[in-house]
């Protein structure tokens, strides 16, 4: 949408103003993400730029917060907990979600709207309510303060994403491929693994990534359902922010931003592969 040749002065001014406004909004979006990166190298335990940092004096910069993160055993436990819980929860939610999505996209599925609503309800219900309810119920059945309780809770929260992405993938799915496969003599299971799975894999993986990041970043449910042994990275950051604002949190935050960038790249590559496989040009 470039400036057309017949644009008058008013339109030209508006064109550049509009671009300026958008640039400001993009700045608003991105600055908070990147402003903490230099702060994490602050030699002083403050959350703001010291004069030494602004004059690029090397004495104002230090790696000690990263050092603290890597050597502190409670951070290490938090990292282990975060990954273990997220991976287990993702496996559960991806498996159950994919199978359910296959069922939901069958044309013969009865009560589809109602069942679909129930499947994505964990995404709609405010997190505090899910967390409170799970706290009340899981303590009643003895799952409170256990890793299993947190994993099940996170799996429940992650399934809507898998269901949505896989059903979206199934929308464009060519049913005649299944019939062709059956025609050629394959039974249901072979058809599933050799025909269906490769085609819906992008949807499954992107749903799985959504579920992973939901569990990895989730803190309210862990606060309620878990106890100190299930402490995850976001929990430690949350309690750290409330109590002692040390730049170690900024170091962790920077590392998390890097992880986000990797995930984003992975998703982008998946999307391109998906489009290629469907015969659409990658633009």
């Amino acid at each position: 949408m470039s400036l057309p040749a017949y644009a008058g002065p008013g339109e030209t001014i508006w064109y550049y103003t509009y671009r300026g406004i958008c640039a400001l909004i993009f700045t608003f979006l991105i600055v908070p993400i990147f402003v903490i990166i230099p702060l994490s190298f602050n030699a002083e335990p403050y959350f703001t730029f010291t004069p030494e940092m602004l004059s690029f004096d090397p004495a104002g910069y230090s790696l000690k917060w990263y050092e603290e993160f890597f050597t502190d055993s409670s951070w290490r436990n938090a990292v282990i907990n975060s990954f273990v819980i997220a991976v287990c929860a993702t496996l559960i939610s991806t498996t159950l979600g994919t199978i359910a999505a296959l069922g939901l996209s069958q044309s013969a599925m009865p009560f589809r709207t109602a069942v679909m609503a129930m499947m994505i309800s964990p995404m709609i219900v405010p997190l505090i309510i899910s967390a409170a309810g799970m706290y009340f119920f899981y303590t009643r059945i003895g799952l409170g303060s256990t890793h299993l309780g947190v994993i099940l809770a996170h799996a429940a929260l992650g399934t809507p994403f898998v269901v949505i992405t896989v059903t979206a993938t199934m929308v464009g799915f060519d049913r005649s491929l299944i019939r062709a496969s059956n025609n050629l003599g394959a039974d249901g299971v072979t058809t599933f693994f050799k025909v269906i799975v490769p085609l819906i894999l992008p949807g499954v993986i992107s749903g799985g990534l959504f579920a992973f990041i939901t569990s990895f970043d989730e803190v309210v449910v862990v606060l309620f359902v878990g106890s100190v042994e299930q402490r995850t990275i976001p929990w430690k950051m949350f309690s750290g922010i409330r109590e002692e604002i040390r730049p170690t949190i900024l170091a962790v935050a920077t590392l998390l931003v890097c992880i986000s960038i990797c995930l984003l790249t992975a998703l982008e590559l998946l999307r391109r592969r998906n489009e290629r496989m469907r015969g659409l040009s990658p633009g």
Partner: protein
Amino acid sequence: MADTTMTTADGIPLKVSLRKALMRQKLRALFLVAPLFFFLFITFVLPILDMLFRSVDNSIVSDILPRTVMVLEEWDPDSAALPPEAAFEAMVKDIQDGYEEKTIGRVGRRLNFENPGMSSLFRKSGRRTKSIEEAPYKDALIAIDDKWGEPETWRVIKKLSPTITASYFLQAMDLQETVDGDITWQPDDYRVYLNLFWRTLVMSGIITGLTIILGYPVAYLLATLPLRTSNLLMILVLLPFWTSLLVRTTSWIALLQTQGILNDLFVFLGLVDDDNRLQMIHNQFGTIVAMTHILLPFMILPLYSVMKTIPPSYMRAARSMGANPALAFVRVYMPNTVSGVGAGSILVFILAIGYYITPALVGGRTGTFISNYIATYISGAAQNWGLAAALGIILLALVLVLYLLYDKIVGIDNMKLG
């Protein structure tokens, strides 16, 4: 007469075969959906039902004071007279049992929610009823504390005898039921929840409005730029989307603090005195700004996917018919984006009213949401699970209403995430 019903190859009528095949397909679909259904039922739906149960559950009084509850059934609370001697005997025995089993403190706490002072009354009585062995129980109990001689005390106990109570819901809506059964407003000093719900809704509304104002131009730009450029710029939207909530909130704390980056910048530029720095955190401003930033991608992405489906020829057609660019935009383009705006707004609004982390960290006293209060009632000093559950159920009802609206406008099946 020849049989005219159609049959399949093995002689079964076609209708029957079709019905059987359809049934098989339905069963297969249900069979595929079943595992997740049961999983969610146990891990998600049952907890919500438990919460509903707790919001009305009041079995604690009849569990711990069984004899008293039974005797009080006969007593008329409106009469000015005290209950009969049998009630006092029942109460003494119940308190003695309760003290042995250490449950008396709990029932005192429950009654204290309705009538402050009951907690200390039961605690005191618990310690002293050990010595009461025989009649007259009435005088002995009143000797321990005068409150036992007031009908009000007994009225409260009788009122809270039923195993189901609406008192938590009433309190969550700033109402109370007097001992006469009337429903009145709570005293002024205790009327906070309606105001809290309102404040949550208003702030969420402001946040939604801000995301529309900020998100619309950006979505339009992304939708109309050539694909290569827009994909690149899209990264600037997706990166915040994928960044941890805590990371974003932490950066806003660093930015908005009184001695933080923005204030330092303003002082450096001379916009603000060093002594008079702007208070941008621990208040509503902080919550609104931080949450607008966090929820902006949720507005941009649905808007973008709707705008992408609008053919550019519409605008060209409008201009070729003589409309100036502004008019063409308002009269032709915007109406087509209404569904995107609606979908994004409801999504942002529903997410906003349930937020806990960001208001807890940057909201201070005035910028906290109802979810923060629910959390306090679960594990704070004023622990009151019934009230927390009631507040949660009301919040859930609000969200369900909004969700039904969302379904009407967009349809659950059409949810896209970019």
